[in-house]
């Protein structure tokens, strides 16, 4: 019973657990869809059980042999949700059907996690013709990568400006028309600051993130954080489903963002404009994160304008704003009026088993009736990708007159494009928001902040 013995025991214990941990740490993509019996398949589906209960029940009437297990992943933003999904993958229990937004599309596709849907879509083209006819090619292109389609978009959101009508009325301003400019915007922001029931309103507010922060501003200033080009390929999709559509011309196999250009003069100009709004006292403190705080201010009549997509409409109603007390419009024009959007859809795990059943589920979900079974789709808390769903009735719940801008951002504006989101978009977003925060807090000039951002983005590209 000497010290030596117990130390030896301790080391043995350590050795054993090290081996165990080492073995367990090797990532093995097993077959996770468990086929039990002849045709029965179980699929792990990344979604909220409550929202999809009706959908799954209806699906099971057609396909009783498929069991859907829900994996409810929560997060503040899409990047965070992607991180959680990856954590599950790292630990060996990934989902069979995931849901990803633009922020993660190329991540899953580029790393081989998501399965290409092109062949299946073409094989079932008769069945899918209705869906593709109803969905703008802009969205489809946004879910393609290097020539193949990886997701079927379900909903999307382009960045528009929302107006708090009571503040506008108090300032004696009308909701502007479609062609309004950045100068009109500035005038409205100035006129609506410092009014309201407590005389402490702000004209314009925004959140520091990737989608809808100052991104729409550099889009309308006709530039981008990264250079853009279209990947080749995708002809099969375009010719099969969009043969006669002018909007589908010139489209390729998905977006590529080959190099960073964070500090080009137009980018600097856009950032200077936005930071200038804070300096002029027109914007409350800018924070990183989701938009819940902004919504609170908007609803309490302390914020006149902010950026949001279709997803705000329904939730403003939920938060207690009367239909008709808020309105929406296209983003104001600057050197252009190019809009940015993000879209989301389901993807199928590569090599996870049960792909056929998963594909049936995806097709089932692309139908209008199915989409309407999802509560928050039905109550206008997002923008459906299907044109036929974007009707006066659907949006009428919100009381907005300009609801057509949501889908028209795609149909009427061929230059609308997705937010820049290459394979390493999570890391890119961190760099983007970090330097943006230094500029908005006034600790770095926009030029210096963007120079710093560019340097780190270049290093990021070099590492990948």
């Amino acid at each position, binding site marked *: *019973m000497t010290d030596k013995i117990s130390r030896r025991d301790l080391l043995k*214990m*350590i050795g054993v*657990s*090290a081996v*165990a*941990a*080492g073995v*367990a*740490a*090797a*990532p093995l993509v097993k077959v996770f869809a468990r086929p039990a019996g002849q045709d029965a398949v179980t699929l792990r589906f990344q979604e909220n059980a409550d929202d999809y209960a009706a959908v799954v029940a209806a699906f099971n009437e057609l396909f009783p042999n498929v069991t859907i297990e829900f994996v409810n992943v929560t997060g503040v933003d899409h*990047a965070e949700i992607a*991180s*959680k999904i*990856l*954590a599950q*993958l*790292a630990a060996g229990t990934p989902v069979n059907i995931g849901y990803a937004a633009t922020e993660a599309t190329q991540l899953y596709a580029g*790393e*081989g*996690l998501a399965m290409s849907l092109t062949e299946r879509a073409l094989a079932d083209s008769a069945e899918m013709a209705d869906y593709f006819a109803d969905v703008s090619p802009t969205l489809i292109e946004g879910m393609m990568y290097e020539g193949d389609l990886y997701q079927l978009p379900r909903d999307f959101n382009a960045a528009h400006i929302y107006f708090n009508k009571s503040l506008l009325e108090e300032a004696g301003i009308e909701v502007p028309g479609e062609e309004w400019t950045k100068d009109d915007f500035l005038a409205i922001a100035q006129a609506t600051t410092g009014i309201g029931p407590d005389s*402490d309103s*702000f004209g314009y507010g925004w959140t*520091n993130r990737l989608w809808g922060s100052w991104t729409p501003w550099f889009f309308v200033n006709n530039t981008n954080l990264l250079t853009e080009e279209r990947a080749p390929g995708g002809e099969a999709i375009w010719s099969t489903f969009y043969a006669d559509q002018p909007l589908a011309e010139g489209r390729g196999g998905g977006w590529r963002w080959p190099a960073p250009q964070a500090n080009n003069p137009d980018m600097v100009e856009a950032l200077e404009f936005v930071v200038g709004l804070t300096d002029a006292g027109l914007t*409350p*403190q*800018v*924070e*990183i*994160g989701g938009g819940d*705080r902004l919504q609170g*201010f908007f609803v309490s009549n*302390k914020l006149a304008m902010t950026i949001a997509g279709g997803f705000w409409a329904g939730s403003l109603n939920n938060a207690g704003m009367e239909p008709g007390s808020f309105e929406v419009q296209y983003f104001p024009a600057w050197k252009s009026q190019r809009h940015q959007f993000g879209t989301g859809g389901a993807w199928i795990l590569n090599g996870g088993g049960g792909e056929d059943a998963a594909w049936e589920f995806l097709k089932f979900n692309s139908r209008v009736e199915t989409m309407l079974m999802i509560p928050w789709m039905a109550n206008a808390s997002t923008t459906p990708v299907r044109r036929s769903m974007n009707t006066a009735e659907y949006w009428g719940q919100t009381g907005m007159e300009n609801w057509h801008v949501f889908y028209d951002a795609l149909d009427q504006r061929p230059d609308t494009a997705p937010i820049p989101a290459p394979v*390493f978009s*999570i*890391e890119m977003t*961190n760099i983007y*928001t*970090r*330097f943006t*925060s*230094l500029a*908005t*807090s*006034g*600790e*770095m000039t926009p030029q210096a902040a963007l120079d710093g951002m560019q340097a780190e983005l270049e290093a990021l590209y070099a590492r990948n």
Partner: protein
Amino acid sequence: MVSKTATQPPQRNIIRRWLAADTLSGIKRQRAILGYLFLLPTIIGLVVFIVGPMIGSLALSLYKWNVFRPPEFIGLDNFERLFSDARILVGYRNTAILVVMTVSLLEVLAFTLAMLVHKISNRFLSTFFRTAYFLPVLLSGAATAVTLGYLFHYDFGVINYYLGMIGIEKIKWLISSDVVLIAIALTTVWRNLGFTFIIYLGGIASLPTEVLEAAEVDGARGLQRITRIILPLLSPTILFASVTDIIKMLQFFDEPFIMTRGGPGDSSRTVVMMMYESGFGNLEFGYASAIALSLFIVILGVTGVQFYLSKRWVFYR
């Protein structure tokens, strides 16, 4: 014993006698075996859920692994990168500042409050204060961050409002690199005060009253009483409280993550945040493990120093 054991098999007999021996070595053996037995559940739990995974992480730090591709052995590259990474240094700097600010404020405040509350003879009042101070501890880190994030808001926050009423200009609590660490420190102190307070309360309550009374009769009063008598007697408690608090704060994550996401820039980014971001954000699990390892060593070092110094000032009865 002879009659009972006559029917038992010989081996058990020997063992039982060995264990039950009234000799000194018998007791020693009892204690030793009991010691190991008592420790078993804890050791098993810690090995399976902490030591083992830590070693797994250690192994991981020698690899480059981004989840999608198989891990690639790169030896000490992660550590080389760690040492030349300016941002990690900033993370350590921030963590150090936060730890110093938070822990010093915590220990002083908690001790003072515990001393004062201890003296209250009114049952109702003392329960009231005890509950009031402990209440923030009951909130989750996320809830605290959300709430105080609102209160510290530059434009619409309650704190700036009241500061304005007494003539102080609005402070950019969460949006200025100069002040953000103070805001987070205050949030953390608010949330953790009750915890440390209870520890000190327990410690003060178990101070031997006869020693205190004897000291008073001898004329010790006020500050002398505190520094010469109470603090030394309380030293095991102080050691415990400060070691625990420092270790906790070095691992700081929830509040800065939720309140500022590390901003503006990197000014409120702690080391654990950076580790989390490299791993779960940038998918560089090898590098993240290297960061975790460096933090572990730092914590080990700091605690080791504390214990070493404690030999000088801690006094066990």
